[in-house]
């Protein structure tokens, strides 16, 4: 195995759910031993069964388990792990955690603490990227001082605008403001959210684009200064700022625009001296694109990029963290065909997508050619109400987008998940991906909200022509 002796011999997986399983798989392939760090809630979980060792780090509450730096670092030390993979969410982008790892001689598989601190502070990240020549949405670069300041900026920016927490992320700490009358209340609420979620009450303003596309670029950059872009992903189908469907390549956008966006991401990664796998997020409005933020972690939707490039992103993350140079150059990155991912969540479309966790008694994932399922579920597994509602990600690949979509539809139709209390969004996903707006690539970040408001009863089908009774309703 190339460079296996230079890699870590043992990695602590400081996460849960499907991403923990995903990381364990690549480690096994690389001959790296794994330790699953788990909460009492996850004691019977898939990664605990799969990893070479497991260590119980705390109770169900994430603050005392998956977000407890002391528990995780102590767990890594006691099990003699050389590195920690933080997955996504939890402590994955916490500069203090990355620093605590370094202080305890454990490699953090992710960017340096300095980079994470700059990216996590959105005003700083915007300033750095603006200096690197990336276009920003009109708005404030520095955090807004007071409401007078906010009104002044809003006059230049125009409405509707977004008010965002300086340390926000993951769809939290964002508010849409439609008019000057709403500004004060929204600013107050967003400050409070930012304080509660991120211990940072600073906010900034940004013009809101209605009907824009969310396009992001996957970057890999090693510690030796080689930068690669692995193409873009379109994640425009979102519900309340949570992505539901992601695909690559981004459909319906010009080749020139997409190559400009990818080049901008490379420029940004080089400007900040990024290391590891990262994602540059942009909003795209007709022929303009605007930088939004950088995510310094592996992302939920990374498999679509893996499907078209053939590159295992977790493997590259581990190699970069071990200080190894990338084995590819940009011309080696050949993207082939189209890939799409759907997030299957334990939530009930019939009651406002409320979480519907519980025990899974029947679990039959789809299979077959060019179908990938990343999951931590099995018959007898429990979807815990303590964590997020993601049950599985279904990824399909085909030589072209229409085939990838019909393959996805067939795969979702095959997926059987049942159990007391369990509801899923599978039927909803099927309706969305078969909708003409999506098939014709005329969708945007408002499409799901728009389609939902078209119908009075959310559990009825979205278009009459697609009517098919949901199996569980």
């Amino acid at each position: 195995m190339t460079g296996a002796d230079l890699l870590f011999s043992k990695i602590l997986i400081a996460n849960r759910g499907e991403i923990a399983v995903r990381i364990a798989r690549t480690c096994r392939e690389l001959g790296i031993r794994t330790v699953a760090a788990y909460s009492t809630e996850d004691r019977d979980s898939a990664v605990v069964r799969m990893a070479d060792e497991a260590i119980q780090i705390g109770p169900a509450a994430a603050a005392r388990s998956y977000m407890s730096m002391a528990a995780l670092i102590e767990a890594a030390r006691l099990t003699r792990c050389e590195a920690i993979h933080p997955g996504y969410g939890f402590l994955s982008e916490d500069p203090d955690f990355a620093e605590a790892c370094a202080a305890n001689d454990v490699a953090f598989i992710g960017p340096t603490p300095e980079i994470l601190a700059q990216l996590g502070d959105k005003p700083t990240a915007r300033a750095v990227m603006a200096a690197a020549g990336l276009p920003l949405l009109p708005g404030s670069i520095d955090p807004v001082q007071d409401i007078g300041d906010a009104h002044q900026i809003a006059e230049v920016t125009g409405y509707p605008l977004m008010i965002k927490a300086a340390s926000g992320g993951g769809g939290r700490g964002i508010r849409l403001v439609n008019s000057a009358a709403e500004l004060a209340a929204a600013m107050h609420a967003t400050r409070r959210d930012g304080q509660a979620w991120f211990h940072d009450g600073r906010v900034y303003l940004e013009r809101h684009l209605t009907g824009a596309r969310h396009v992001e670029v996957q970057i890999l950059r090693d510690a030796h200064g080689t930068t690669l872009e692995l193409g873009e992903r379109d994640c425009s189908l979102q519900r309340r700022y949570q992505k539901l469907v992601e695909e690559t390549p981004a459909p319906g956008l010009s080749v020139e625009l997409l190559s400009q966006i990818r080049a901008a991401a490379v420029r940004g990664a080089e400007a900040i001296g990024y290391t590891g796998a990262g994602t540059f997020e942009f909003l795209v409005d007709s022929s303009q694109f605007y930088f939004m933020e950088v995510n310094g972690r592996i992302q939920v939707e990374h498999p679509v990029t893996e499907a078209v490039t053939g590159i295992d992103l977790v493997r590259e993350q581990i190699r970069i963290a071990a200080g190894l140079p990338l084995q590819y150059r940009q011309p080696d990155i050949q993207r082939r065909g189209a890939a799409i991912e759907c997030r299957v969540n334990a939530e009930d479309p019939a009651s406002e997508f409320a979480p519907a966790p519980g025990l899974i008694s029947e679990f039959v994932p789809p299979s077959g050619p060019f179908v990938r399922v990343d999951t931590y579920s099995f018959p007898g597994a429990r979807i815990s109400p303590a964590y997020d509602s993601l049950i599985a990600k279904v990824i399909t690949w085909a030589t072209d987008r229409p085939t990838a979509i019909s393959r996805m539809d067939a795969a979702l139709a095959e997926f059987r998940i049942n159990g007391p209390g369990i509801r899923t969004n599978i039927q909803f996903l099927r309706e969305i991906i078969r909708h003409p707006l999506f098939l014709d690539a005329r969708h945007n970040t408002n499409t799901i909200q728009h389609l939902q408001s078209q119908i009075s009863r959310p559990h009825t089908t979205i278009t009459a022509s697609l009517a098919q009774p949901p199996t569980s309703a």
Partner: protein
Amino acid sequence: MDGTDIEQLELDATRPGTGGSLITVACESMWRLISASDRPLRRAVIRAGGVSVELEWPEATGQPAQPAPPQVAPLNGAARAEARPGPHAHQVCSAMVGVFYRCPEPGAEPFVREGDLVRAGQQVAIIEAMKLMTPVHADRGGRVEEILVADGQPVEFGTALIALAEDGPR
């Protein structure tokens, strides 16, 4: 025994193709199986389409109220408490990941020995995590029946450290 002892009971008779008479037969066979055992069930699943009756009993730990320990590889080098205490014991468990110490400092007398009586709130050990020494207090009184972890061993969250016999002072 009756159904109230079962922690989870699933019935799957609402699915299409499920015959009402099938479910009756399945239920009958389930109750027959349950009454053959004197231990409370943990989980029961009946599926009538294709007929399947699944019953699950908790593992025999002598402590039916406690969830079964996870089936995982033991912590590197750590002796996971092999000897499970008797049914009347109470366990003082670790509230964090760290290293277990019986004594305030190397060479000193241990906080408690087997046979000692302890009060609720009395310090019985130390867990070292991130170079910080955190005292472990008995969460109730009792007689120390057994120290379950060797001095200097790494422990997980929830690892049983000290078994207390119930007959001690409250």
